[in-house]
């Protein structure tokens, strides 16, 4: 299991999309928008928003394509021939991808903290870290499921855009939804990405009640997506 985790981590770190979509873009977005928009609390909003976006792009979008490539190669079919239980393989690979997501979010937070002079406590960082792990895990498991539904890169591209765009646009990652139409606010209440962003912000502010609510929702999403991921192996490989 350690070998699978270590090799997955090494391979993930070599992924060229990771550098741009989950490191450069969120850091540039955090600095650029944070310095451009002078509103109280916006530095916190954009930093946590970009942390969440970077994780979404890596743990979901990048991994959908990565899983699809392996699936098309037939390696997941071969997994069924090996003695390694499927759940162990999924957990090992996902663990590596979650760790990469956590490191990316940590980088964005570190840069945001330096640029905007945040005073972060260890507890706050730990609370945000926990949210990152649960959120990234949910996205990674969702990526297994979505890639199982797609037969080509074109379908994967459409599917990932269909999921990530509403996630991002109906959330307060980059802008406040206070003056948004009622229906947008209603959608955002059911938007898993909004719960992820909320978890990061309440963790940042050490708002334990709000953080626990987000953790609960993210945990539920994680379990549902894990179930879907394992099931998707069954039907897509058959």
């Amino acid at each position: 299991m350690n070998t699978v985790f270590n090799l997955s981590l090494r391979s993930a770190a070599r992924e060229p999309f990771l550098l741009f979509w989950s490191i450069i873009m969120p850091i540039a977005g955090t600095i650029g928008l944070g310095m451009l928009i002078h509103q109280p609390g916006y530095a916190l909003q954009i930093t946590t928003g970009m942390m969440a976006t970077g994780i979404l792009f890596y743990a979901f979008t990048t991994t959908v394509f990565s899983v699809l490539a392996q699936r098309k190669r037939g390696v997941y079919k071969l997994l069924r021939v090996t003695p390694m239980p499927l759940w162990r393989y999924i957990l090992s690979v996902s663990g590596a991808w979650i760790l990469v997501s956590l490191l990316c979010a940590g980088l964005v937070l570190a840069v945001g903290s330096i640029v905007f002079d945040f005073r972060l406590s260890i507890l706050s960082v730990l609370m945000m870290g926990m949210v990152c792990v649960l959120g990234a895990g949910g996205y990674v498991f969702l990526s297994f499921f979505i890639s199982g539904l797609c037969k080509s890169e074109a379908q994967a591209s459409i599917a990932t855009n269909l999921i990530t765009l509403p996630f991002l646009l109906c959330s307060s990652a980059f802008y406040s939804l206070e003056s948004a139409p009622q229906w947008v606010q209603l959608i955002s209440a059911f938007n898993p990405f909004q719960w992820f962003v909320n978890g990061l912000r309440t963790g940042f502010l050490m708002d334990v009640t709000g953080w626990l609510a987000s953790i609960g929702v993210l945990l539920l999403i994680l379990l549902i997506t894990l179930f879907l991921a394992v099931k998707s192996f069954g039907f897509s490989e058959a």
Partner: protein
Amino acid sequence: MKLISAQGLVKNFHGRPVIKGIDFDIEQGEVLALIGPNGVGKSTAIAMILGILPPDDGSIAYWRPDYRSFVGAQLQSTPFFEGYSAAENLKLFGALYHTRLSREQIQEKLESCHLADAGKTPAIKLSLGQQKRLAIGVTIVHHPELVVLDEPTAGLDPRARYEIKEMIQTMAQNSQTVLFSSHDMDEVEQIADRLIFMNDGRIVDAGKPETLMAKHGVGNLEALYLKLTPSQFKGGLQ
């Protein structure tokens, strides 16, 4: 000793029968060739033996309950993990079979696949012949008792085919049992101990090459192939 005994296997896809009740055994130490035109069900039969596809009817008895640890398989799609080097693929597949490989052991495996200088090369960048050799290399990384290869030489140039044949002969010399599918009668003649001819989802005949040729009154395996797998075209070529 029988490693595998398949009885009355049936498989339908979307109501269309693909395997129409086949019985066969795989004896320890033999090199068994599964022969037949494209689309007669060879890969489906292999997938059922490997446990990738469940049969709709019939049964498969294995020589040991933990047989998965002692089977190595290479499917038609040349499976290996993209984003990993040749050496990393060997290490990863070793881990999937609970076999931890040292750096020296990996180098030995690379040499046995004629890939000594390609250890650090990403698997996706290897030539087709090298990819096939790597795919067979990962198949035998854990010294399996039974090796199953689905068209191992398909689409390869003569040198690459020769090298794959050499690898199969080495497996036979190492007392490994090999089941492989092929259309290439020269290859079959050189390496197979026993043949199973399939046509239209059924086994049309099976036995030792010389016995089958004598039985059907033909002088070579190509003539035997043509006799046992008649053209599906009505009227044939003018």
